């Protein structure tokens, strides 16, 4: 949509007025300042938050959707999206597993998802499908004793406005990019984590355990803060394919690590990739960035990306603190007609900063995948070091893999190493395994898992096992 039209829409008077709309649960499609006011009001946000959102929205209107990525998709009509919808009412959801797509259930079976969790994942209308209430209560108690805050971003805006004001948008500014600006204007869900000084979070935090997290928001906003010497490991996502009717996802994740703090952020993403023609799949445009603000702080991104029709995602680290460390470990798998343009940015600002990038891309079917990585060494980053390893594996001959490494070196004392390989899953490797009696499918999974080993070992144990199973399911039938 042309920006003039947009502006016209914005300039429309508050015809309906958002106050009366609050009574309804779902907004009709469309985006203007009314929409944003509605969301903010619905969430019970203070005035400054609404201003923040409107500022983002006004900047977004002036921006253009990025076109530099190696992706091909039709223009998105932002006026056809509904920006606020209450969770489906129980009577509108499947009443039992019998009403759920058998294909989905088959996948849960293969992934070894416990029976009682399958219903929840498939969106079946059952109250307390598993004992989440008691689990969460125990959880909350333990976290509270440690002084850790873990809640939804909406709660945080209401309950911890000072922390939100201090940190929100400081890592990913509202107008950072097109999708981040949109997210800042309309986000409705997400997590907030605050780990106070000197505290090591007593457990791994997972969205999975957060109440109300069942419906993944279309525009999620996550903010994680670790004060000095604090540590946290955060798990996002789920290996099971989630039912989701929203096609466009534009999340923003901000991490802040102060002196000697360590944040480990692990993602397993397996959203609907679309049918064989790639229709109906999720578009995933994510901005994830960590700020190593303090000296010797460390932020580590680990991701296993297997879903979505389109993935646009570059978890990055700003290495501001002296001797801070940024890490990015990624496995991205594309099959069918999936497209992924993913990678990372390591911005070295402080002295003695170090970064590690290990990216493993696997393309099968007719999919296309690009690694895009930037290593930037600022003028003050004396003695900065980067190591990048970027490997692509092709399965079949209709897929593509591309690598776009960018380096900007502003300090001559920096050391940069880059290794890249592209290989076809060897007919020879397959033949070798099969001639030992191993089936083709098992051989593919063995070779692919071997290829990804460097990344999988960075995942928390339980996630790693699930990730392996997920990879096998994703690549089923990729060969032959």
């Amino acid at each position, binding site marked *: 949509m042309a920006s003039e039209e947009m502006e016209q829409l914005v300039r429309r008077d508050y015809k309906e007025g958002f106050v009366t709309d609050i009574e309804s649960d779902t907004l009709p499609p469309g985006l203007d300042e009314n929409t944003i006011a509605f969301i903010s009001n619905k969430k019970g946000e203070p005035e400054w938050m609404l201003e923040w959102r409107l500022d983002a929205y006004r900047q977004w209107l002036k921006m253009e959707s990025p076109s530099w990525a190696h992706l091909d998709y039709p223009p998105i009509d932002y006026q056809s999206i509904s920006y606020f919808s209450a969770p489906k009412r129980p009577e509108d959801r499947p009443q039992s597993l019998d009403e759920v797509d058998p294909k989905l259930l088959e996948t849960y079976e293969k992934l070894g998802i416990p029976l009682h969790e399958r219903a929840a994942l498939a969106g079946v209308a059952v109250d307390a499908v598993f004992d989440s209430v008691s689990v969460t209560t125990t959880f909350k108690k333990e976290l509270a004793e440690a002084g850790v805050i873990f809640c939804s971003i909406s709660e945080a805006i209401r309950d911890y406005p000072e922390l939100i004001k201090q940190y929100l948008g400081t890592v990913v500014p509202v107008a950072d990019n097109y999708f981040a600006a949109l997210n800042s204007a309309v986000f409705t869900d997400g997590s907030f984590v605050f780990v106070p000084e000197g505290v090591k979070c007593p457990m791994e935090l997972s969205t999975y355990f957060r109440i109300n997290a069942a419906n993944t928001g279309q525009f999620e906003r996550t903010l994680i803060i670790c004060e000095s010497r604090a540590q946290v490991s955060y798990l996002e996502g789920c290996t099971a394919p989630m039912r989701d009717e929203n096609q466009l996802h534009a999340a923003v994740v901000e991490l802040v690590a102060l002196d000697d703090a360590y944040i480990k952020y692990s993602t397993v993403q397996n959203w609907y990739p679309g049918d064989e023609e790639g229709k109906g799949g999720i578009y995933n445009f994510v901005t994830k960035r960590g700020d190593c603000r303090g000296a010797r702080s460390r932020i580590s991104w680990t991701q296993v990306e297997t879903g979505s029709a389109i993935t646009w995602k570059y978890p990055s680290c700003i290495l501001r603190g002296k001797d801070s460390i940024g890490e990015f470990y990624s496995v991205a798998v594309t099959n069918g007609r999936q497209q992924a343009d993913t990678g990372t940015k390591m911005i070295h600002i402080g002295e003695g900063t170090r970064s590690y990038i290990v990216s493993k891309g696997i393309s099968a079917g007719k999919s296309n995948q690009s690694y895009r990585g930037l290593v930037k060494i600022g003028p003050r980053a004396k003695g900065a070091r980067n190591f990048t390893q970027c490997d692509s594996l092709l399965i079949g001959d209709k897929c593509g893999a591309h690598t776009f490494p960018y380096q900007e070196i502003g300090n001559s004392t920096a050391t940069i190493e880059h290794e890249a390989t592209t290989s076809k899953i060897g007919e020879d490797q397959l*033949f070798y395994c*099969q001639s*030992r*009696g191993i089936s083709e499918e098992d051989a593919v999974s*063995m070779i692919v898992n071997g*290829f990804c080993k460097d990344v999988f070992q960075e995942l928390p144990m339980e996630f790693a096992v699930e990730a392996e199973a997920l990879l096998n399911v994703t690549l089923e039938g990729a060969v032959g």
Partner: protein
Amino acid sequence: MLQVNDLHVTVEGKEILKGLTLTINAGEVHAIMGPNGAGKSTLSAVIAGKDGYEVTQGTVTFEGQDVLEMEIEERAQAGLLLGFQYPVEIPGVKNIYLLKSALNAQRVARGEGEMPAPEFMKLVKEKLGFMKMDASFLQRAVNEGFSGGEKKRNEILQMLVLQPKLAMLDEIDSGLDIDAMKVVADGVNSLRADERAILLVTHYQRLLDYIVPDKVHVLVDGRIVKTGDAELAKELEANGYEGIEEFVA
């Protein structure tokens, strides 16, 4: 055990095997010798089921089963195992994992069920010792960064663990120094058994000083042109393949 009858094989439109006939019985060790390009490696590759080889005529049966109709893994599960001249590297996959997966895949296919882990470890350690290989070997990725000698030892180690009925070894001696060759030969000799057959494919007679075959076949231009006992290999060493070719012509 293995019958190859009038086998014709074409690779990329070129006929490599031109009517090869061969019978191997249980308990026997056969060696196939011949000049480069005669089709030696083609024979073992076709039996193992490698892609890109077109059988235009002839049959291959193993214990009465039509081998050419079987999937690659089914051939291995039936007891046909190929030791490679150039084993591939599989980064990130530990040797121990490949061994275990292969053994269990074969056992499950034969209805024997998976081998319990302690029993498996005991078996592997014993065979490792026999091949004079260090236990750290098991934790390394399959063939990755292995020297030529290590790769060949690893092939034999797999044979010792998997215990095939017919072991086919393609140029197992190439690139080995004399000490490594002795270890490899000891490994192969330990496989000799009444119920097992071994097929060696080699260019040089040297290997046959250590693994003495029951039968030697000379393969020239896609056909077996002469068959004899271990003495034939020595004649070849003395006179070269050209002598045979002339003799045949």
